[in-house]
């Protein structure tokens, strides 16, 4: 689906279309997304719940007021057996536009074969709920989420932080406004964690530009989600993009 929108961002109509397309694919892939509509309008949001097995290491609670960077005590493992590491690297690289520091982090990890030091924390099953809304102020999608133990206890911000993969944690730490905070859900009025949208335009711009240059359709919401989702444990299977454009038949090589 080609976007006529300028590099400025996403409007309500385009957001709705992107979401509907994502939904169709989600249904085929059984990925669990649904659309929650505001009665009688196109306004609404995408929603998905998922169970995740996560290690919460309370001893490596990050003081996200900014001190964590000099000491890296235990790192908690982000156990997602089916999450390919390449996806995270790609996602992180696109997100930062500063591939050197991300590669640096990953190279350190290589010594341990990509396994973090296992911490004292125990593994828990948690219920996550993810919502994708449109921010009209920023003209970008925004990811809201909340997490509960199976007994229904809400996770604290510290616990959520300690379940973020170390590769992402440092990047988020450095700019408080690009980080995870507790916010009021604009439509539900309840506390949700949110990934701040103010830098979204920055990392989406090269993606959109490249797509435009290559005359390739792009789903803004899907591309954006593949970047931010992994940060908070939301997997976006590669099949979403392989389905979007099946291989074109061999032709004279001219772009369509």
């Amino acid at each position, binding site marked *: 689906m080609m976007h006529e929108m300028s590099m400025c961002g996403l409007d309500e109509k385009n957001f709705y279309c992107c979401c509907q397309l994502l939904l169709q694919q989600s249904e085929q892939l059984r990925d669990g997304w649904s659309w*929650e509509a505001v009665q009688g309008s196109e306004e609404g949001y995408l929603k998905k719940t998922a169970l995740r097995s996560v290690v919460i290491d309370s001893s490596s609670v990050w003081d996200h007021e900014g001190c964590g960077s000099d000491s890296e005590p235990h790192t908690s493992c982000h156990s997602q057996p089916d999450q390919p590491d390449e996806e995270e690297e790609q996602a992180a690289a696109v997100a930062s536009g500063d591939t050197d520091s991300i590669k640096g982090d990953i190279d350190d990890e290589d010594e341990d074969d990509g396994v973090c030091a296992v911490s004292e924390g125990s593994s828990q099953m948690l219920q996550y709920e993810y919502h994708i809304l449109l921010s009209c102020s920023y003209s970008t999608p925004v990811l809201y989420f909340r997490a509960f133990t199976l007994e229904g206890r*809400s996770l604290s911000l510290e616990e959520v932080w300690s379940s973020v993969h170390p590769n992402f944690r440092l990047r988020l730490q450095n700019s408080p406004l690009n980080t995870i905070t507790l916010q009021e859900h604009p439509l*539900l009025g309840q506390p949700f964690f949110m990934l701040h949208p103010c830098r979204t335009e920055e990392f989406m711009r090269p993606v959109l530009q490249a797509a435009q240059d290559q005359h390739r359709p792009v789903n803004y919401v899907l591309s954006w989600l593949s970047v931010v989702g992994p940060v908070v444990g939301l997997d976006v299977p590669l099949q979403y993009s392989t389905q979007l454009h099946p291989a074109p038949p061999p032709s004279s090589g001219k772009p369509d």
Partner: protein
Amino acid sequence: MADDKDVLRDVWFGRIPTCFILNQDEVTEREAEPYYLLLPRVSYLTLVTDKVRKHFHKVMRTEDAEEMWFEYEGTPLKWHYPIGVLFDLHASNTVLPWSITVHFKNFPDRDLLHCPSNSVIEAHFMSSIKEADVLKHKSQVVNDMQKKDHKQLWMGLQNDKFDQFWAMNRKLMEYPTEEGGFRCIPFRIYQVTFLFSSCV
């Protein structure tokens, strides 16, 4: 802007006389007296109620006091709404002083955001400023300000210093004639009920 200074001062110095009463079910070692305070309309509950906390802590054991939260006639009060907004939304018809109930247990985390420190309030405030500036100036003004300018804006609010605050806020409120003025005037509508009530 200079002509409006009186109006700006009136808005800044708006106060709501408030009476804080401890929730009856709190465990206390002796009777708790109500605490009276003039709340600034433009500020946030958790920013201006340290004295309230200290006052009630005197009659409680430390282990019985968890995160403080406020309620008015059964409704938990959202600290992240400016105090003036809370009053206008919930209590505009009440006889003054505004009577708020103070709690130290059973924090309603399905309704209220936690507020563990002032830096959370600062982040929330700055986030609102940024969002408004996106609409108004495509973030140009807020991004051109230095970090210390942002800090000064916040400190002005935190310490109730009109001049300190407006020295910085002026930049956000100026009318850039070369671009034909504000792109938009940002405003936020608060309502008591939400479009959805979700079952959790």
